[in-house]
Structures are given as structure tokens and as C-alpha cells.
């Protein structure tokens, strides 16, 4: 619970650190990508903090190469 709250606060801090600058410079595209990535990774972090079983990319990588080595 506390960790999720902490993540949200951190995300908000990050947003307010970058947002005014990007807005001032009128970088619309940068602002969009920044916001999308921030929302995405905040969601991932919150899921991780709530002990949601996230898929591990290393599992896929390992599976992929094991498929080739035939084991």
C-alpha cells in the first residue's frame, strides 16, 4: 500500500519536474512520449509493488535460444 503510494508520488514529482520545461519549450512530441512512457512505467511499477506476477522478458529470451539449441 505504502509502496504504491510512494510510486505514485514519485511519478507525480517526475511529471512536475519535466512538464513545465517541456511545455515552455513547446515540444509537443517530446511531451507526449514522456507522458506515455511515464504512465506506462508507473503502471508497471505499481503492478510490481502489488505483487502482480509480471512477465519476465528473460524467460522469453531463454525460451527463444533454447528452442534453437534444441534442448
Amino acid at each position, binding site marked *: 500500500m505504502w509502496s504504491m503510494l510512494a510510486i505514485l508520488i514519485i511519478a507525480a514529482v517526475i511529471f512536475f519536474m519535466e512538464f513545465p520545461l517541456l511545455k515552455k519549450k513547446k515540444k509537443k512530441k517530446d511531451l507526449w*512520449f514522456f507522458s506515455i*512512457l*511515464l504512465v506506462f512505467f508507473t503502471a508497471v*511499477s505499481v503492478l510490481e509493488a502489488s505483487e502482480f506476477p509480471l512477465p519476465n522478458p*528473460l524467460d522469453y*529470451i531463454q525460451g527463444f535460444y*533454447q528452442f534453437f539449441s534444441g534442448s
Partner: protein
Amino acid sequence: MDNQTITPRQFMFLVILFTVGSSILIVPGPLAAQAKQDAWLSIILSILIGLLLILFYDHMTKLMEGKTFVQATIMVFGNWFGRFLLFFYLSFLFILAALVLRNIGDFMTTEIIPETPLQFTHILFLIVVIWGAYLGLEVMGRSAEIFMPWVFLLLIFFTITLVPQIKIENLQPFLGEGVMPVLSTSTLALGTPLLEMVVFLMILPYVKDAQPKRKAWVLGVLIGGFILTVITLLCLLVLGSDLAALNTFPSYRLAQKINIAGFLEGLEVVIGIIWMLTIFFKMVVLYYCVTVGIAQFLTMDDHRPLLLPLGMGIIVLSIIAYPDVAYFETFVATTWFPYALTHGFLLPALVWIGLLIKKKRSG
């Protein structure tokens, strides 16, 4: 990005620190487990193969004509297929950065602060890394210049203080198990750190002066490789191949053995500064390149807004990347080399061929 440049000398220091960082912790153990007392030969062998790789990368940089790997790939393969390839390249760097972060986290929690949760070690370490990547390449290069003497001094101190404990017979019998184990384990050192050098294809365009670049790179790898060889040799000579393989972090165990006349001991944390500094630079190079790469991938003007959001992602990935140390050990032993080979050699080779064809057509 913001047109920051570094000198070839700074670039060389970054290469040295990158080569040593995290490899110094994770390479000697598995190497000693497989190649026994000949583990040092595998390192030397892999450095020699690595040099060919570096020459290849260098040739590629010339063809890229001042563009980073990301820009060059998009130029050669177009917006869609180029980005498809780059997705894998960038994910490779991202995963590598997360794993390196986990290396230092694992090291700290095993040896120094076992009760501090892994997340906090990662967050604290990453904050400094983000700050470094935020300030840009120039600052990274200059701080490499500032810290390099410390790393060297500590390494020299480390080596000299261990000389009295060396037992030369730990290296015998020379090639007692035959040549095969040496050849097969050299892939391990080739995977970490040499194939990871592909990350420098993102930095090389920002290095000043076209001419001494190759010299700086080759010299950096040679010096870094020499340091790794010396550390591995010390592990074998002082601990013996059996204990070196038994230890999770043999080089740290080595530092614990420093004992000068019975009163100067317990210096392992001071020596630990070497790993912290080198891993920091490896991490900051990786992180900088990932964010710059993603920014160029998305055609953004500035990579800095991405640093903090990606940092959240890297922390999550570094935690979930492996549930326990045993998973990591099998991953490094079985999957890492083919994975690094694909992204560190095959993918650049594909782009290299594309560049050659393009050059032929236009020229």
C-alpha cells in the same frame, strides 16, 4: 542530442571502466569453475577475439559517417524495418543495463548490506547514474578522467598486497584438462564484457578527431582486458581454482584476504570502491546510450525527459529479471552468449552489410 563531445582519451577511459565494470565480479567464478587453473587463458583468448570485434565496430563507425547506430540503421533500412531491428538492439541494451544494476545490487546485498532491500540499493545507485546521464557525455568523460587514477591506484595496491600470498603451483598443471575447456569458456568472457561493447556504437560519433579513435578503443580494451586477466590470475593464484569457483564473488573474497603485517586488514570495502566505480561507469554508459537511442528512435529532440520514466522501468526489470541467483547463473551460462552474439555481432553485421551496399550504390 546536445552536441557534446569527448576526447579519444576520455573515450579510452570509458572503455576501460566499461570492460572492467561488473565483469570483475561475475566473470572469474564461472570461468574458474569450468576452465580450472587455465581460466586466465580463456580471458586472454577472448580479449584477442574481442579485438577483431573492435576492429569490425571501428570499420562500421567509419561507414556510419558521424551517425549513431540508431540513426544509421534507420537510414539504411528505412523507418519501419530499421525500427524493427532497433527495437531488439535497444531492448538488449535496456536488459543489459537492468542486469548490471542487479549485479551491483546482488553484490551489495550479499556482502555488505544484507538487510537493506534490493530495491533501495538499486534506486540509490540509479539516481546517481541518472544524474550522470542527465549531465551528458562530456561530464561522463571528464569524471572518467578524474576517477581513473583512483581505480588504477586501488588496483595496484590490491595486486601488490596480494603478491605475498601467491602460490604459483595453483596454476599447474598448465592445460591439464586440455585445450577444450579453455576454448569453450572463452565464450563466457566474450559475452561479458566484449560483445557488450556494441553499446559504444552509440557514443563513437561523439568522439572528437577521426584518426586516433581506433587506437583509443583498442588500447582501452587491451588495458581493461589486462586488468581482468590480472584479477582472474590473482583469484587463481591466491585462492586456487577450486575456491575461486566456490565463491560467489571471488574477487571480493580476495580483497578480504589482504593482510599487511597483521594490522592492515579488513580493507575489502576500500577495494570495493573499484567495483562501485567501474560498475557506475558501465551503468552510466549503458543508460545514457539506451535513453539517447530511444530518443533518436522516437525522433525526440532531447533524451533527458526520458531518463526518469525509463529509470522506473529499469528498476522494475532489475528486480523481476531473475527470481534468484541460481536462475541468473544458468542464464549467464547458457543464454547470455548467444543473446549477446545476436545483438553484439549479427545485428551490427546486418547493418554493416546494408551500409556497404548503400555506399556502393551512392558512390
